[in-house]
């Protein structure tokens, strides 16, 4: 029941834009607003994936990994290196403490 309902809603959410509006250019003003969607949502994803757990603010070892990722991004490390460094540093902190 849960699986069917959630699946149906999600498929509809994903399909709505491309199926109804596919291939058409968005109006200029809307397109320029959507330029801001990626930075806003990506920043929100960084924050929620770093701090949110079951609707609570949680501070744990993965913040070390996120901090390492910030440094790696600043040093212009490639995407793969950023992800691996974040995971390895988090794992090391968990293993050490």
């Amino acid at each position, binding site marked *: 029941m*849960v*699986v069917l*309902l*959630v*699946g149906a*809603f*999600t*498929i509809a*959410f*994903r*399909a*709505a*834009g*491309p*199926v*109804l*509006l*596919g*291939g058409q250019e968005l109006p200029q003003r809307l397109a*320029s*607003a*959507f*330029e*801001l*969607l*990626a*930075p*806003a*949502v*990506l*920043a*929100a*994803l*960084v*924050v*929620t*994936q770093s*701090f*949110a757990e079951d*609707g*609570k603010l949680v501070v744990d*070892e*993965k913040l*070390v*990994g*996120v901090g*390492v*990722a*910030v440094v*790696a*991004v600043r040093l212009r490390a490639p995407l*793969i290196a*950023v*992800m*691996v460094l*974040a*995971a390895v540093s*988090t*794992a090391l902190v*968990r293993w050490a403490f």
Partner: protein
Amino acid sequence: MAPLAVAAGSFGAAFGVLAQAAGMGVLAPIVMSATTFGGAAQFAAASVLDEGGSVVAAVAAAVLLNARYGAIGIAVAPAFQGSWLRRLVESQLIVDESWAVAQIGQGRIDRRVLVGAGLVLFPFWVGGTTLGVLFGDVLGDPERFGLDAAFPALFLALLATQLVNRRTVIAAAAGGLIAFVLIPVAPPGVPVIAASAVCLVGLMRR
């Protein structure tokens, strides 16, 4: 894509283990991975059920978490062409990760990158779930390997490529702040949806 695929496979397995523990059986978690194809929403639904929550609560939590795909879908719609059936199928490959890596600037995406990334992630996610459901006890906890830090790191690296001018920096700061403030007070999913509303401010100026 390789670390992304490994991370997706591991978390697919973790979902399988949790879903199993929540009493979802063998087939339901795998079907859910194939249809919902959204980690956070699936974890939310499974953990609500695990804690003895109602079906309505589980569905609401997961639907809220995936509602952002409505906004993302509208934003990427111009890139999706061909028959409506093709657009329907390809749209199902829109996940945070595939959408994020497909960004080519100014809010536009490369549809081929999005579809390619989605096609790589999908089998790892569903396959991982299957392994988790069947052999959950043998696999280690992905958090032991720090894989839960790989996702924020990915989004952070992709965010950095988006910060091209003052408008985008302000949008990112506002989106991050809104999400942070809402985490403790709003149900999971709402912080990201609220942050996506930041782009509507872009309608007003210019």
